[in-house]
């Protein structure tokens, strides 16, 4: 009996999201599909110990869920003739087996992802809905990860489902030109999830691995599902996956035993995850060769140069500045310009970096960004401008929200006067 329970748990873990995605398509409603999924597993728990695990558990669960939903509609239909018609219609449809071939089920997972990441939903709602429906996280787990209340997350999800239903956001993978556009929205959601896990914007714990790994799994899934459809990997999806893997490979070295942040240059490179770096390197190379790459691939390429450099001193800053020049063409944002200036400082010295950075500090967005002031402070410090450095560190400190970053900046400021 315990064996059966373990088997069911394993099947639930591997199949529940696929079964849900297909039930949403068959039933046309998120909530009805979720109830049906639960009931299907309850039915399996009852029936499988007697009859044994079916040959195709996935198809069995979809079919059971569908019948449970028909039952539910019929029960509700006592009050509503229209619902009764729908239940009958659903029951007389062509056998469900035809609709639950494995290929169709994989397409359903992609449909679910594109629906949850639809740009018509607010970004926070996209993230919450994706984590809930695609990744199967509980509302409580999502709330914990984002340091918000479960009720807030639940409300966000309810509202998003309401908009999907009322504005009729379709359950489809966009075709043609729209696919590339909508994929941007999917990749952005994945990157948001990753960043939330990688560096929490607030809270004591700087690193939360669970969400980062969830985002990496999601990117792997989207990459694989899209490749099946189009017969070629999407370069930007490869780029994003590589970028996340490269950050993730350094997770053990980003903070010290006391939880303090360790700068890239001081991280112990022998502890970086070589397997992840190698996989990322392959992805970046493939994406660059496609010539259809974009900002994610270029950011990954920059991270890959760092990851493959045997020591901080041996970093190929020439290559990195070149990649930033390319990135500026794709994504001319103040943050990219800031990072380019920091790379210039490394290649040509703090004087050159300061020359590039000073005019950028006119920008309002950078004026409110603590890392811009921190970079400015570092350059002044290296040039021996004690007062200017102290002023910039103080400014950075005032803007930083993350406790580990604050402590780091305080330390820098203390070192100046010391």
């Amino acid at each position: 009996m315990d064996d059966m329970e373990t088997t069911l748990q394993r099947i639930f873990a591997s199949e529940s999201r696929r079964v849900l995605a297909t039930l949403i398509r068959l039933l046309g409603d998120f909530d009805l599909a979720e109830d049906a999924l639960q009931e299907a597993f309850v039915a399996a728990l009852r029936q499988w110990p007697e009859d044994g695990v079916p040959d195709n558990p996935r198809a069995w669960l979809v079919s059971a869920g569908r019948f449970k939903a028909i039952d539910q509609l019929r029960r509700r239909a006592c009050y509503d003739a229209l619902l009764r018609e729908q239940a009958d219609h659903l029951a007389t449809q062509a056998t469900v087996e035809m609709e639950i071939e494995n290929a169709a089920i994989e397409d359903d997972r992609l449909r679910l992802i594109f629906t949850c990441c639809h740009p018509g939903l607010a970004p926070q709602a996209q993230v919450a809905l994706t984590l809930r429906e695609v990744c199967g996280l509980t509302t409580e787990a999502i709330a914990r990860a984002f340091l918000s209340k479960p009720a807030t997350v639940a409300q966000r999800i309810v509202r998003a489902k309401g908009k999907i239903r009322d504005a009729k956001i379709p359950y489809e993978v966009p075709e043609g030109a729209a696919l590339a556009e909508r994929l941007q929205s999917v990749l952005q959601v994945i990157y948001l999830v990753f960043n939330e896990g990688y560096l929490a914007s607030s809270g004591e714990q700087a690193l939360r691995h669970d969400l980062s790994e969830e985002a990496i799994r999601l990117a792997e899934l989207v990459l694989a599902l899209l490749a099946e459809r189009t017969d070629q990997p999407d370069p930007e999806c490869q780029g994003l996956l590589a970028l996340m893997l490269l950050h993730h490979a350094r997770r053990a070295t980003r903070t010290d035993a006391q939880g303090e942040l360790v700068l890239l240059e001081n991280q112990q490179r022998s502890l970086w995850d070589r397997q992840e770096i190698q996989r990322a390197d392959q992805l970046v190379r493939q994406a660059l060769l496609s010539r259809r790459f974009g900002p994610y691939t270029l950011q990954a390429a920059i991270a890959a140069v760092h990851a493959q450099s045997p020591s901080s001193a041996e970093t190929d800053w020439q290559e990195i500045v070149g990649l930033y020049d390319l990135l500026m063409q794709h994504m001319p944002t103040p943050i990219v310009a800031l990072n380019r200036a920091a790379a210039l400082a490394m290649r040509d010295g703090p004087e050159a970096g300061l020359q590039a950075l000073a005019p950028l500090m006119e920008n309002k967005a950078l004026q409110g960004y603590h890392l811009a002031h921190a970079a400015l402070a570092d350059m002044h410090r290296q040039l021996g401008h004690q007062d200017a450095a102290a002023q910039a560190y103080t400014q950075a400190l005032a803007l930083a929200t993350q406790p580990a970053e604050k402590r780091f900046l305080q330390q820098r400021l203390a070192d100046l006067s010391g």
Partner: protein
Amino acid sequence: MKYLCLVYYNEAAMQERGDDHWQSLNKECQSYSGGLQESGVMLDGSALQPVSTATTVRLRDGQVSVTDGPFAETKEQLAGFYLIDANDLNDAIRVASRIPPARYGSIEVRPVRDIYGESSDAVPYAEALAQR
């Protein structure tokens, strides 16, 4: 499913673009909406007079209150509307993105509510199943 596409832009900025621009934009709108009407996508629609002609009406405690102008001062003003018939939001977005003033202002896409046909949660299932 019906969607109302509300066309907003900054009237002052539009005026600054001059008369030639205005005439050619109007022609463009005529030809786009003409095509939509022919294909049965557009059910109704119109351009509006500028907000300087607008009057806002409220009823408070049984008293009608009438004020000059739109109800809220905003950067962009309502300039026209398209009532369209679309399969779903993606379809509606496709139509809305080609409305010529989308290049200058914004188009708000709102699903039309059927206040006669609403009953509990019957609508989504009906629509989902009707499609199939």
